[in-house]
């Protein structure tokens, strides 16, 4: 590959990370504050050539009372985030009684057996991830601690310190684009999104895949109405199963939408859409889905469920996820996307816990209004004044910036501001 990416190699795992964060992950939402207390100690610690790495904290609302297939998805999301390529090591903060927690040791019990029941820890060890755990309900094992909580917090801090020391010794190595996954999404759209921004991102996606990279897109609900465009990106003869999967996804989305219509209040296109000139759902959806690329020779390779591990073999993948920004980004990150490119019209500050999220716009007003939120502005006036093609313009502006962010030379604005957005998707209400 022509482009050299400088990234952190994860020993024994065949993956490369563009960041070297240490993650603090509560296995259940009940211990979010405990995790925060530990994180507070390290919130100003930075390391790496450009101080791009830090201790990150994944606050979330999941980890307990998941029913049905929600349990599997929640587990996979936490597992995916903990073994994310951008994470050097992880501290699991368990409560003791949650669905994915470590059960406190009973006196006389086999320690190894007990720990092997801690599935999250066990799976992470098998994947070769550096992992430590603390358990709030564990009995007090050292005499110097007055309570188990004090013990958990103190041990947690020690583990994180140890991981930071190790992470500091790592250096970036040269590698190719074929090891990397880019997620794409859009939110807070306006008419410029459909006309220019998504189309511009589409050209960059094509370019990225031609250079050997993998791209994943999500937000299933936005495909409704643009079925024709999506089906055009599927090789029906070779990949019949992909066609069937996408069809099933769309059918489910219609049923869900219909079931919720009474509560959604406003349907597509929304009155706001109609007022800004969008007439039909198809028009809206096609404008959104232009971001998956223009090249007909790049088909959708497969459909993944929420947080499923994204294969790093080049090409385009679709991940089933809700349309909401935080969930769609969390899903792609949990699936192993190294960074996310997000197109926006009105501007949204979202970020992610494990990777950079770059916001792109072609709306000049938005860019001037929020220069600390928008990472990339594509000046559309060049198209009208100098007759430049949108394709050349977008690749010229976005692609080098994406590479620089991957190499850690630049930090995304969301990273600089310390966004650590993450959450677990739930289909069912939780008791």
């Amino acid at each position, binding site marked *: 590959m022509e482009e050299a990416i400088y990234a952190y190699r994860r020993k024994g795992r065949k993956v490369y990370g563009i960041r070297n964060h240490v993650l603090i992950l509560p296995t259940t939402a009940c211990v979010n504050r405990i995790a925060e207390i530990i994180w507070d100690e390290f919130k100003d610690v930075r390391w790496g050539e450009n101080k791009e790495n830090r201790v990150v904290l994944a606050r979330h609302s999941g980890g307990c009372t998941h029913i049905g297939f929600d349990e599997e998805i929640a587990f996979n999301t936490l597992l995916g985030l903990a073994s994310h390529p951008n994470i050097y090591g992880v501290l699991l903060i368990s409560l003791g009684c949650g669905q994915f927690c470590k059960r406190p040791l009973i006196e006389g019990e086999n320690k190894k057996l007990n720990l092997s029941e801690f599935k999250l820890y066990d799976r992470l060890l098998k994947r070769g991830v550096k992992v430590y755990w603390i358990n709030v309900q564990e009995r007090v094992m050292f005499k110097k601690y007055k309570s188990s909580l004090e013990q958990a917090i103190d041990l947690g801090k020690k583990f994180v310190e140890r991981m930071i020391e190790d992470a500091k010794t790592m250096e970036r190595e040269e590698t190719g684009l074929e090891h990397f996954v880019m997620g794409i999404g859009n939110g807070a759209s306006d*008419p410029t999104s*459909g*006309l220019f921004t998504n*189309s511009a991102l589409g050209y960059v996606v094509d370019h990225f895949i031609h250079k050997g990279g993998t791209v994943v897109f999500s937000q299933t609900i936005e495909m409704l109405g*643009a079925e*024709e*465009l999506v089906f055009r990106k599927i090789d029906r003869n070779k990949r019949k199963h992909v066609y069937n999967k996408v069809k099933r996804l769309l059918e489910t989305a*219609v049923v869900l939408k*219909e079931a919720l*219509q009474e509560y959604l209040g*406003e*349907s*597509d*296109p929304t*009155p706001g859409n*109609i007022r*800004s*000139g969008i*007439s*039909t*759902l*198809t*028009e809206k959806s*096609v*404008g959104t889905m*232009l971001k998956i690329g223009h090249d007909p020779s790049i088909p959708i390779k497969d459909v993944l469920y929420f947080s499923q591990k994204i294969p790093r073999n080049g090409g385009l993948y679709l991940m089933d996820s809700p349309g909401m920004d935080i969930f769609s980004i969390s899903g792609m990150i949990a699936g192993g996307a190294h960074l996310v490119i997000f197109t926006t019209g009105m501007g949204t500050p979202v970020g992610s816990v494990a990777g950079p999220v770059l916001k792109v716009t072609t709306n000049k007003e938005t860019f001037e209004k929020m220069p600390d939120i928008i990472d990339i502005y594509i000046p*559309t006036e060049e*198209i*009208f004044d100098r*007759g430049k*093609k*949108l*394709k050349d313009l977008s690749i010229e502006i976005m692609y080098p910036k994406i590479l620089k962010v991957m190499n850690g030379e630049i930090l995304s604005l969301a990273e600089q501001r310390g966004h650590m957005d993450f959450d677990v998707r739930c289909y069912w209400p939780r008791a």
Partner: protein
Amino acid sequence: MRRLIYKVDSSDNVGTALDYLRKNEEYPIFEEGKGIIGKVKLKTDIPKWYKVSLNKIYEDEDIIKFGFPIGKSVIDIDKGVVVHFTNIILDPDLDFYSLITKGFILGDALTDIKRGEIIKIRKNFMPIHPLIKDFKGRSRIGVAAINIGGSTSIRLGNMVDITRRLGWNEKYRRMVRDFYRFLRLGLIDFSRM
């Protein structure tokens, strides 16, 4: 932005106004990658980001934007006219007449109504649709888009301008929503109206 009509794909028959455009004035059409490819004289005002027809579009023809059919015209649309959901419908595969048989009509014309004539309840129009059946007096509900013969149906399609007249109240929003839902799924729930 600038006073231009932006055309995304070469097969498009509608462009997007990048700024507010006035009627009776000529504006250049800008195609992506090609530059200015022609001019269009407008017959209606075009709000910012709204679509303009770039050539005459006949009834039942596809509306093409981004190189994709995004809807179907339900009346003849002249060149240089605003294209919005008052003159196009969503599903390109759906026969408009099946709408009538399935009941999505607003009411019947009482007399012959000429194109451009104002449609008023009980003056030249008898409402059937549950939403407007209870309207008192001679409320204006829209303008005839084509010549409508007496005792034929008046539907979303041969009538325009209904958005402005009925306003964006909750009932109307629900009607539009159900209209789209009907187009997608072929079922409509009148029980809530």
